[in-house]
Every structure is written in structure tokens, then in C-alpha cells.
């Protein structure tokens, strides 16, 4: 039993092997290999335009929506290759691999409708009461319930930026994902909102596997367990966050984490 838990915890939830992505002629990701562990926070860092976001979007096939984007290689989630065939049920994949974007992007609807949209899509609730419970639970998990419980039916655009971002996280949690992909979730937020989101990420780590792209190295240091450093489409260095920041083995990683460029 103990051993079982241990294997689960230490096993790779996502196993990326030999991933190559092209935008038209531009080779955006070159031979990327990365193991992402369950219930870990994995941070992807690197200078702008190095392919972090592209890599992240490859994990739930959001790149499918971009014209001229070609993906080769394999991404195994729980030992199933999501790129195996073009007939993969990408809708179920994206349900299980939630995504939160750089700019808070709530739907132009009420707070309640924002969270209830996903469960309705996947018919997760049989009646209104069940849906109410899902909405409430999701908002609670995103530490937003106390702030919005009295105005669930107000337009989501009335919330502050930080609240909107937590609403987007709640919306992702509502469809019961296993993995959360966060694409610079704090870059449009002030320090206090950022702090709230970071707390939330550490909280969510217990039940979800989290991959976060960040430009803020202090943030990566604070919240992540594993870090991968991207440079011009290649993963130059990967390992425990402590090692990457304290004792990077590659020259470029060292220059980046010490703030020489980037």
C-alpha cells in the first residue's frame, strides 16, 4: 500500500519524448524530452520566444487550432500517447488537462455561468442542485467562494484581474481535471493577486499535477518542485528547482537564472 502510493507519487504523469513542433518553417520546439511528475509543480522558464508556451499548449493539443502548426513526437499521459492518432478524443483530453491563460479570459457571462459552462458541456451534473454543488466546490477550491458568493449572477467582467484569474482556475477545476497547465497566470496581475494565486497553486498541488510557464524566476523558485529551462526551442536543462537555481550545470541556465539576460 505504502509502496503503491510512493510509485504513484514519483511516477511520471506526463512523459514527453522527442517532441518537435514547427510553425510553417519555424522550428519552435526541438527534440524536447521531459518527464512531469504527479502532484508536482513543474515550472518552465526561459527567455521570450523560446517555446515555453508552445510546449505547454502541446500538452493538451491546443496547438491544433493554430494554422500551419505541425507536431511530431509523442506526449504520453498515463502511458497513453495523445498524439497517437488524429482520432484521439481531444475534448476528453482537454477536460482532463485544464488550461489557464496569460490574460484572465472569463466569458462575458455571470460568474456562475462561467464555472457551470464546463460541467454542462460534459453533462457532469444531472440537475441544478448537482451543478450548484460543482460550482460552489470549484469556487471554493480556487479560494474565490467567499468573495463572490453573494454575487454569483453578476457579470464576471466586474471582478478584479486577480479574481478573474482565480475564476478562470475555478472554471478549469469544475470539469474535474487531473493536470493543470498555467500559461504565465500572474503576468497581468499585481503582487497581491499574484501572491493569492501562488498560495492557490501550492494548495492545488495536493490534488493536481501542475505545469506552469513563468517569466518570474522568483515565482518559479517559490512554487515549483521541478524546473525546465528552455532556450531557443530546446530544453537545455531540467531538474529539481533547487538544483537549477543554486547549481545550474549549463552556462546559459546560469546566465539566465542569475539575471544576466532574459
Amino acid at each position, binding site marked *: 500500500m505504502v509502496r503503491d502510493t510512493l510509485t504513484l507519487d514519483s511516477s511520471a504523469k506526463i512523459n514527453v519524448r522527442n517532441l518537435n513542433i514547427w510553425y510553417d518553417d519555424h522550428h519552435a520546439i526541438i527534440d524536447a524530452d521531459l518527464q512531469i511528475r504527479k502532484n508536482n509543480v513543474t515550472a518552465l522558464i526561459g527567455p521570450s520566444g523560446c517555446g515555453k508556451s508552445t510546449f505547454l499548449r502541446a500538452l493538451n493539443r491546443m496547438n491544433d487550432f493554430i494554422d500551419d502548426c505541425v507536431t511530431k513526437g509523442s506526449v504520453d499521459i498515463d502511458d497513453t500517447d495523445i498524439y497517437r492518432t488524429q482520432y484521439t478524443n481531444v475534448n476528453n483530453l*482537454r477536460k482532463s488537462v485544464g488550461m489557464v491563460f496569460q490574460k484572465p479570459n472569463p466569458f*462575458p457571462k455571470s460568474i456562475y455561468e462561467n464555472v457551470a459552462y464546463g460541467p454542462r458541456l460534459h453533462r457532469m451534473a444531472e440537475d441544478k442542485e448537482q451543478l450548484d454543488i460543482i460550482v460552489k466546490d470549484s469556487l471554493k477550491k480556487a479560494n474565490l467562494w467567499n468573495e463572490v458568493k453573494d454575487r454569483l449572477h453578476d457579470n464576471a467582467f466586474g471582478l478584479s484581474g486577480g479574481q478573474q484569474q482565480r475564476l478562470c482556475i475555478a*472554471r478549469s477545476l469544475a470539469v474535474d481535471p487531473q493536470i493543470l497547465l498555467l500559461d504565465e497566470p500572474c503576468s497581468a496581475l499585481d503582487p497581491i493577486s499574484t501572491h493569492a494565486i501562488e498560495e492557490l497553486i501550492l494548495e492545488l498541488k495536493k490534488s493536481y499535477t501542475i505545469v506552469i510557464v513563468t517569466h518570474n524566476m522568483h515565482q518559479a523558485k517559490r512554487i515549483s518542485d521541478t524546473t525546465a529551462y528552455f532556450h531557443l526551442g530546446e530544453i537545455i536543462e531540467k531538474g529539481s528547482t533547487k538544483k537549477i537555481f543554486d547549481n545550474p550545470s549549463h552556462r546559459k541556465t546560469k546566465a539566465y537564472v542569475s539575471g544576466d539576460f532574459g
Partner: protein
Amino acid sequence: MQSIDLNSKLEGKRRRLQKGLEYACKSALGITALMMLTFFLALGYRGIGAFSQTQIEINVTSIESSTKSTINQSMYNLIKEPDRKTKKSLRQLVTPNAYSKIDITEVGTYVLVAHTDVDMYVKGVYNKLDEVQQVIVDNLIEQDKIYRTWNWDFWTNSDSRSPEIAGIWGAVVGTFYTIGIAILFAFPIGVSCAVHMEEFPQRKGKGWKRYRDFMEININNLAAVPSIVYGLLGLAVLINFFGMSRSISLVGAITLGILVLPVIVISARTALRTVPQHIRDASNGLGASRLQTTIYQVLPAALPGIITGTIIAIARAIGESAPLIMIGMVAFILTAPSTPMDPATTLPVQIFLWADSPERGFAEKTSAAILVLLVALVTLNLLAIWLRKRFEIKW
């Protein structure tokens, strides 16, 4: 250190250029406003008379064999022992169609619509009355037996040979049928076409792009094709090939539907493009399929823009007359159509018909019908602006 010179004026040439351009723009605006004003004032001046109607009160003292002769007899009573010529003059003071609208079975006072010549004389447009008529009309005006009232006939009657009782109701009903069916037909097709082009791009590289460019050029071209060509299309395909009847609203509706289709496609595509990509990302990221994203998120967000574009398309269709003339909707319609399968006409065509009539009484009807059409168009455009302001989402 040199201080900044804040007091001197702009140098001559630069100032003259600036002022000149400023005045040119101002006068252009002034000219536009002046032309609009002239247009409206001229129409209003000429058309305002059509909203009032001259009526004549008659005393019926004896009932004859038919209402027509009863009316004639009571007119003859206005003068002692009229001869044949005077009788004719007297008869022609009331509208020739008076007996068809009223059934006189009892002695008493009745109000009838006056003849167009009397109407025009009272309104001071022209004087075609002979001496006998003029004396009697002046007399009756003094006795308050000839007077002007609000012209309900203009709103509730259809076309007529007699200008004094001709109205726009038939044309209005025809317009509703034609435009209503045209939009019912063009809106779903246009929006689906726009959704297909904007929301479901195939990723198969160059071929798709070429196909999409080709479609785009085609649709933009269709929007610029002269409207009479659509009339020819309707004539050749719907009437000649499919054998539908001429002059009916349904044929007009399909023709106008094809006419406004490209306008709706273009405005719907523009509206879809204004929906930010991140909304699609958010929906897709939750596991929605493309169709679900489109139906639940993108279309509702784009709907205000689509509706606005559609209203502008309706406004264009309402003003069209050329294609309808081609398919025979220039018919002389005496009663309002009761179904879209009945012969009908529309407001602009009615205007064309009236403008073409030799009777001078139709001149003010023409202007009045134009005013009605303009008010309808202004209302539609205001509605479009209001809808956009009211439901537009600020991202």
C-alpha cells in the same frame, strides 16, 4: 539658454494650409447637411398635403335606386334645376369611388371624400375646377361643409386610380412579406456561411487558403453587383425555369434574399472576427468541440454585430425597386396581399408607380410615400445603432 517661444503664431504658409484644410472640411460638412436639409424640406413641403384629406358633407334628402344615384341626386340638389353640363360638374365634386365605400339607405348627412381636383383646390396646389364648381366649393367651404381632416385612407387603402383615395397599405403589407421572407431565407444561410468561413478553417494548407480567398472575392463581388442583375436572375431562374407566378411576394423575397446574402455574410464575418481569440481558447481548453464553442460562446458574443449588420441589410432591401420591377412586382394592387403567394408591390415600387402617374394628385402621394420610406429607414438605422450600443460587449 534659449527659452521656448510660446507666443509667436504659426508661420504664414503652414498656417494658411492648416486653415484652408479646416475650412474645406467644414464646408464639405455644411454642404452635405444643406443637401440633406433641402431634400427633406422639399419632400416635406410637397408631401405634407397627402397626410390630410378633403372631405365634403352632403345632405341626402331622398333615397334613389342605388347609392351612386343617391349621392348624385344630393349633389344636384346644391343648385336649382341644373342642366346636363352643370350636373356633370356637380357629380365630379365627390370621388368617383365614393359609392363603393358607403351604403346610403337613410336620409341624413353624410361625409364623403372630395374629388382630387377639389382636394388640390382646397390645398392650393392647382385649380382645375370650372366656374360652377368653384362657386359651389367656395360656398361649401364657407359653410364648413368642405374641410380637411387627417387622411386615414392614405394609411389604410391600397393603390387606386383616384389619387384622393390611394394609400400605401397594400405596398406596406407587400414590403413586410417580401422583406420578412427575404430575411428568414438570407439570415440563416448568411450566418452559416460566415461561420463556416471564420470558425471552421481546414488546416490542409494552400488549397484551403486559395478556396477561401476565392470565396471571399466572390462574395465581395456579389455585394457590388447591380441590383437589377438579381432581378434578371429571379426572372430567368424563379419565373422562367421554376415556373413561379409573376408579381408575387415570394419571388421578390427570394430575389431580395439573394441580393442581401453577401451583405449579411460580410457583416457576420466581421462580427465573428471581433470576438477575441481568447474566448475560443477558454472554451476549447475546457474540452468543448469547435461546434460547441461556436454555438455557446462565439455566436452569442458576435450576435449584436450580426443583428446590426442584418438590420442594415434589411434597410438596403427595403429600398430596392429595380429587381422587383424585373420580376413584375410593379402590378397595380387594389387590395393588400393576404398571403405571400398573392400579387404584391413594395413601397419603393409604389413610389415609382405613383411618380409615373399622369394625374397630378399623385405628386404629393409620391413625396409622402418617400417620407414614410425614409422614416422607416431612419428608424431601422437608429435601431441598429441602439442595439450595437446596448448589447456590445466591451472586451
